[in-house]
């Protein structure tokens, strides 16, 4: 067996995903504790550290949410350990309360906060740029431009954190975290920080923001540390000024945008003609380096992805110092848009626009436009045989007994695809169209989707405002139930909200790559745990109507939901069906045996509405067909067909 790549010795050069590089950086920095809640594109930091663990000397856990993970890491740093937490952009919002407060007094052991943003919202509800939040919390912020820097910065962040006694923010993006690059390894720190607790460590009441003389004194202390941090930024090896003598134009960039800038400058033939300041430590702004750039130029082009963060800082700084120069960015002349991700093409166009240089267009663009009509969409779907397909079918069936416009509040997890729609479907935006029940697709069932836990909260608002034109329902997965729904359930009980809450229990935090949660029955390292009984928890929180059913037994689950919908007050229905991908991993099934009997099939397309990607429809024959490669014989479509046209061959009648 080859050595796991994160265990390779110093000097080795490996192809690492950005998140693996961050994990290697944590190992080189001598981490003692890792705590995180999974969130794409950050999850592989934890996964790599689990894979690299091998009975290692650091503690690691999948926490129940990001705020708790953050606090676990903070607690470790208070007693002197080196700790790391990693989360996605939305995860930082969950951790925000503690995140904003911990810098008042900071840390003892090095603490690294990795946040992976997602420009273009590939895997997220929003494109939220978290760099302003690092500045808002008044802590140092690194922004790697490639995987090598992602590793090196994470390692150095522990040192910087201990030097400044502040947690250090490492801001990644999808194109760093989920991209791979060649990374040369450094030595791993052998030494581990010794642990100890000192109530008045260097400051009175160090770990208590209210301790005399109160929070303002700690805020003042924080600002003292920030000026040291600014010095660190000025001398950081990740901040590099490449001045060109006599150049009137300078470019300022950071993070992955700097990698696009390097390519764009070369493509435009501007190498050696413009000055370039590449920032890797962006907060606090390295004032001396920026001064050195601004003093020599008349035009500054700021290339960054996300919000105009560097641009705003530099505009303010230029005003303060009295530099007279034109600044191109996102705020005013919009050479780049403040939304969507950027790339080398967009960067080249932006620089060309600012410098009035022309870029030769690709003459094939007209041809491409025609050819795009050939490219059929590939809508995102739930997996073949997914238990959520059964749950959604049962919900639709149960709702048929009630008239009106029902509101189904979604949440975050695989099941959020119940609100994605199909790319091939055409939506008519009208009041009439909104009164569209019954639904024709499993991918249209959800009416609201925002963030983790928001569904059950919003459902209560709809019901309490007096909405009675239909039923008010919320759905969430098991991991989301634990992460964000518990206080909301208590609220519903306390306020007697007339809502029905479906917990789609598939036993895994599946969408982010099958991490474990308290409901899985094992911990991050695979040790058995006590498990988590969702129906019992709901009851213990005071819910009077709690039902549980199997997601693969459509009639059973329909009935459970129907009972809950008929109940006045908060009700909870737990629909259990383990993630099919996990089931398939354990049980190697042979070729699928589910078939459609063409004689019996009437072409009614009811089975197509189930939304399973293994169900096909032949438009010419007007018959349904099973895609045997994808079908897993889950039996859902067999139950859906009202004509008995679908059967699993060899299955008992």
């Amino acid at each position, binding site marked *: 067996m080859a050595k796991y790549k994160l265990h390779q010795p110093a000097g080795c*050069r*490996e*192809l690492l995903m950005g998140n693996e590089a961050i994990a290697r950086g944590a190992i080189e920095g001598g981490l003692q504790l890792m705590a995180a809640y999974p969130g*794409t*594109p950050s999850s592989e930091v934890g996964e790599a550290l689990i894979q690299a663990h091998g009975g290692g000397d650091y503690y690691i856990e999948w926490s129940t949410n990001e705020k708790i993970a953050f606090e676990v890491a903070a607690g470790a740093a208070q007693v002197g350990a080196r700790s790391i937490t990693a989360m996605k952009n939305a995860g930082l919002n969950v951790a925000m309360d503690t995140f904003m407060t911990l810098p008042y007094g900071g840390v003892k052991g090095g603490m690294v906060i990795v946040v992976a943003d997602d420009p273009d919202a*590939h*895997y997220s509800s929003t494109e939220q740029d978290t760099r302003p939040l690092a500045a808002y919390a008044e802590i140092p912020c690194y922004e790697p431009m*490639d995987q090598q820097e992602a590793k090196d910065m994470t390692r150095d962040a522990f040192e910087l954190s201990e030097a400044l006694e502040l947690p250090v923010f490492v801001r990644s993006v999808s*194109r*760093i975290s*989920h*991209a*791979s*690059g*060649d990374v040369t390894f450094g030595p791993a720190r052998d030494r581990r920080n010794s642990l100890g607790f000192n109530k008045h460590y260097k400051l009175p009441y160090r770990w208590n923001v209210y301790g005399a003389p109160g929070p303002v004194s700690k805020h003042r202390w924080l600002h003292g540390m920030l000026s040291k941090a600014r010095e660190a930024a000025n001398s950081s090896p990740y901040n590099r000024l490449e001045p060109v003598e006599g150049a009137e134009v300078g470019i300022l960039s950071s993070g*992955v945008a*700097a*990698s*696009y800038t*390097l*390519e764009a400058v*070369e493509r435009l033939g501007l190498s050696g003609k413009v000055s370039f300041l590449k920032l890797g430590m962006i907060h606090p702004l390295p004032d001396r380096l920026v001064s050195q750039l601004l003093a020599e130029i008349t035009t500054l082009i700021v290339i960054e992805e996300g919000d105009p963060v560097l641009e705003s800082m530099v505009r303010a700084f230029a005003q303060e110092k009295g530099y007279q120069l034109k600044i191109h960015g996102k705020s005013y002349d919009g050479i780049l848009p403040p939304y969507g991700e950027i*790339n*080398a*093409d967009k960067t080249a166009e932006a620089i060309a626009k600012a410098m009035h240089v022309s870029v030769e267009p*690709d003459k*094939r663009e007209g*041809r*491409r436009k025609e*050819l*795009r009509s*050939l*490219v*059929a*969409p*590939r*809508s*995102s*779907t*739930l*997996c*073949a045989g997914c238990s959520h397909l059964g749950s959604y079918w049962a919900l639709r069936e149960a709702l048929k007994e009630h008239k009106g416009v029902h509101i189904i509040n979604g949440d975050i997890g*695989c099941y959020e*695809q119940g609100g994605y729609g*199909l790319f*091939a479907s055409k939506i008519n935006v009208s009041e009439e169209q909104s009164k569209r029940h019954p639904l024709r697709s499993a991918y249209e069932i959800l009416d609201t989707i925002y963030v983790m836990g928001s569904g059950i909260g919003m459902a209560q608002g709809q019901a309490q405002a007096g909405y009675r034109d239909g039923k008010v329902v919320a759905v969430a997965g098991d991991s989301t139930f634990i992460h964000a729904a518990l206080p909301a359930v208590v609220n519903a009980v306390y306020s007697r909200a007339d809502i029905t809450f479906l917990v789609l229990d598939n036993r895994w935090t*599946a*969408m*982010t*790559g099958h991490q474990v949660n308290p409901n899985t029955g094992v911990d991050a390292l695979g040790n058995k745990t006590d498990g988590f009984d969702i129906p019992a928890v709901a009851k213990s929180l005071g819910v009077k109507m709690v039902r549980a059913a199997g997601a693969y037994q459509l009639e059973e689950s329909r009935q459970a939901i129907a009972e809950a919908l008929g109940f006045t007050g908060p009700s909870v229905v737990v629909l259990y069906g383990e993630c099919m*991908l996990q089931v398939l991993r354990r049980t190697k099934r042979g070729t699928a045996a589910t078939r459609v009997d063409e004689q019996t099939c009437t072409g009614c*397309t009811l089975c*197509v509405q189930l939304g399973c*990607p293994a169900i*096909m*429809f*032949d*438009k010419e024959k007007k018959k349904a067909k099973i*895609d045997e490669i*994808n079908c897993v014989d889950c039996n859902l479509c067999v139950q859906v067909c009202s004509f008995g046209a679908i059967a699993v061959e060899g299955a008992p009648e």
Partner: protein
Amino acid sequence: MSVDIIVAGVGGQGSILASHILAEAAILAESESPGGERVNVRVGETFGAAMRGGAVASHVRFGKGVYGPLVSRGQADMVIALEPLEGLRIAVEYIDRDGIVVLNDEIIPPVDVKIGAVRYPEIREIKAALEQLGATVTVVAGNRLAEQAGTVKALNIVMLGAAFRSGILPFGEEILLEAIKRRVPQRFLDANLEAFRLGKESHNA
């Protein structure tokens, strides 16, 4: 000189593994020629949730002047399409004027096609479309060759073999085979080496 390749397919087909093998080979090629100019290697992956069946495109880039993880539009030297529609989707936007497209002929219809909402283009239409953009298109009976090698899972390696035949990869066969050995599970190694050979010797289907 830089090489820009995109491996396009559907989740579960092994496009990410194929792109990592190419990147690994690029790193190996450099360590085999010490003292040569240092090149950067990047793989820009697009994969999200754990669900199966989504479109996946993996950008592989290596060479001097490579910094970012993404191939620029119209700049791909080669598109390796494990699935024809995904090959079309990517190559229409990315293939260079004189780029090469290696196209598996086995289709995986998207759900939009399965429910009869849209049409899946014919392979000959896809080929003609990409030729209109200046690309040289080689169609490979990838799934059949993979099955012949012992497992349909080796499709990605068949396609690497066919890609190698194009002659634009800047490293030798031994280096690519070494990268395959490092990346595929031991128990599937023989089938994968056979898959590579069949791909390399395949003819335009």
